[in-house]
């Protein structure tokens, strides 16, 4: 069963899936790290982005990778507006309220998708959907390899934005000490909305990399919500490097779990990890910060 000839491709597969998971989790961990809120609508937002990529391909014939410069800004604007228009107004200063509001948003988005586009599972045909790349003898599908590279590039860009730009400095300042940030003249509400927008922009990129090898239906986001939370918790809430490593780890766990326990039971590993980390090491495997 643990023949290296099966194990190696399965680990590679897990790594490529994990890269996209990491990209989704990065958006979530940014929102958590800065705003200290848990965005339960993250999965529903990803589902919307996937539909966006799907319709750009079906109606305009755009290749999913060409859709990147459309989807990323579009999701950013949606996130900025959503934060300013709904989430900021509903908090009343309590984290649980935001959790409930984002739950409400996810219910709305998911059922709006069900109403407009029905519950059919949709896929797209691209010239490279079925092609594979040979990596040391393991055949990995081309879209997954591209997704792996794309997710890494997106992560680097995100880290550069946070680390090197003025906006990034403001974001980090607000994450650490929002009162102090306000005192030195930072428009905190604007920075919060920007962070939320960037968090959703990550989903726009993730959707473009995901769709060629994946599918979309109104419920597709649900599967990603708990996985993304698991990664965020595993990597330490608010830690970018943690989210990246956590994404790879979860991708591999899922892949090997599926190999050893079967498709249905294999998923259980992720949730057991989630519960165990929350209970025994809530600061995450890689983070020492609270």
């Amino acid at each position, binding site marked *: 069963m643990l023949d290296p000839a099966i194990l190696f491709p399965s680990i590679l597969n897990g790594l490529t899936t994990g890269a996209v998971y990491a990209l989704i989790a990065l958006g979530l961990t940014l929102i958590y790290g800065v705003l200290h809120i848990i965005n339960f609508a993250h999965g529903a937002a990803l589902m919307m982005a996937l539909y966006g990529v799907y319709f750009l391909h079906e109606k305009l014939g755009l290749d999913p990778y060409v859709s990147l410069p459309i989807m990323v800004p579009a999701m950013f604007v949606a996130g900025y507006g959503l934060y300013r228009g709904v989430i900021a107004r509903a908090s009343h200063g309590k984290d649980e309220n935001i959790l409930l509001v984002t739950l*409400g948003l996810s219910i709305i988005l998911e059922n709006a998708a069900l109403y407009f586009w029905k519950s059919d599972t949709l896929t797209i045909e691209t010239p490279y959907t079925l092609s594979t790349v040979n990596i040391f003898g393991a055949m990995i599908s081309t879209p997954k390899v591209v997704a792996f590279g794309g997710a890494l590039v997106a992560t680097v860009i995100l880290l550069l934005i946070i680390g090197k730009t003025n906006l990034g400095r403001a974001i980090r300042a607000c994450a650490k000490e929002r009162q102090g940030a306000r005192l030195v003249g930072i428009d905190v509400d604007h920075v919060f909305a920007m962070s939320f927008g960037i968090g959703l922009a990550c989903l726009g990129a993730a959707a473009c990399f995901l769709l060629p090898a994946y599918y979309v239906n109104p419920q597709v986001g*649900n599967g990603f919500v708990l996985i993304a939370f698991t990664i965020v918790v595993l990597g330490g809430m608010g830690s970018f490097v943690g989210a990246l490593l956590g994404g790879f780890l979860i991708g591999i766990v899922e892949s090997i779990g599926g190999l050893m326990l079967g498709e249905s039971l294999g998923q259980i590993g992720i949730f057991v990890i989630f519960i165990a980390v*929350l*209970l025994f090491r*809530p600061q995450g495997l890689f983070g020492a910060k609270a």
Partner: protein
Amino acid sequence: MRSLWLIALLVLVVALLPLFVTSGFAINFVIMVLYATLLGQAWNILGGFGGQFSFGHAVFFGTGAYAMSVLQVKFGLNAWLALPCAVVLGGLVGTGIGALSFRYGLKGSYFSLVTLAFAEVFRILANTFDFTGAGVGLQLPLKESAADLQFATKTGYLYAVLALAAISLLTAWWLKNSRYGAWLTAVRDNEDSAAALGVNAFRVKLIAISISGALMASGGAFYVQMYRYIDPHIAYGSSISVEALLAAIIGGMGTIFGPLLGAVVLHALSELTRNYIPDAPGVSLIIYGALLVLIIMFMPRGIAGLFGRKR
């Protein structure tokens, strides 16, 4: 005292209802409202009175439903004997999850997520093992007699769910009027101060999640008896968790009649949308979601908050 009279009046009115109302639609509506009240109140015990927002109450509902069906189908137990087992099992699952999460100090959003994860774990387990019928689910044999807790008419189910909903309302009344209830709300409002005054916060929360789980499990047991079928998605899917939380939050958290008000509003809305926008999957849920957002934005105390400081 006044709340107690209100509960008695409600029970009396509903109990006499079948004498005057023969419309199957009306009886069914009342059954669904009382059923939603039961689920909402179960959530309210932990979420409203205790301040611990669970996103995975389906874990208790499903456990009750599966205990009820497995005990009857696989062990041939009578439904009246299976019911207390299902309720106790639901309570025990609550104790177990509570012991783990509260022991390690999980609160707020973390608690919500961990309950959701537990529900997912149970769903995958129920989906995998033949013991619970795996993905196919379990079907109860048809035995329409009160001795088997199945009824030929809707009236029987009306009385069954009325009894359960009344118990849930009385539990909420007891929380409003007992020392334990005061401890629970004290822990919700400020756990550290409560602990400083000598309240054992861990034990108080543990009792709340056990009661909440037992009530939710009775809802699952009722579901199985009425529809005679259960599968992993119905039992442990997120929609049942959301239904429970919606009724309590929209009606008013931490109140006795909040879940009842929420249940009435939600079911009236869903009937209206079904009438005016037929063949539209998801529309009533879009309205539910919008209602949840609006209530939290503008009326955090729910509909019950409109009635002033009434209990």
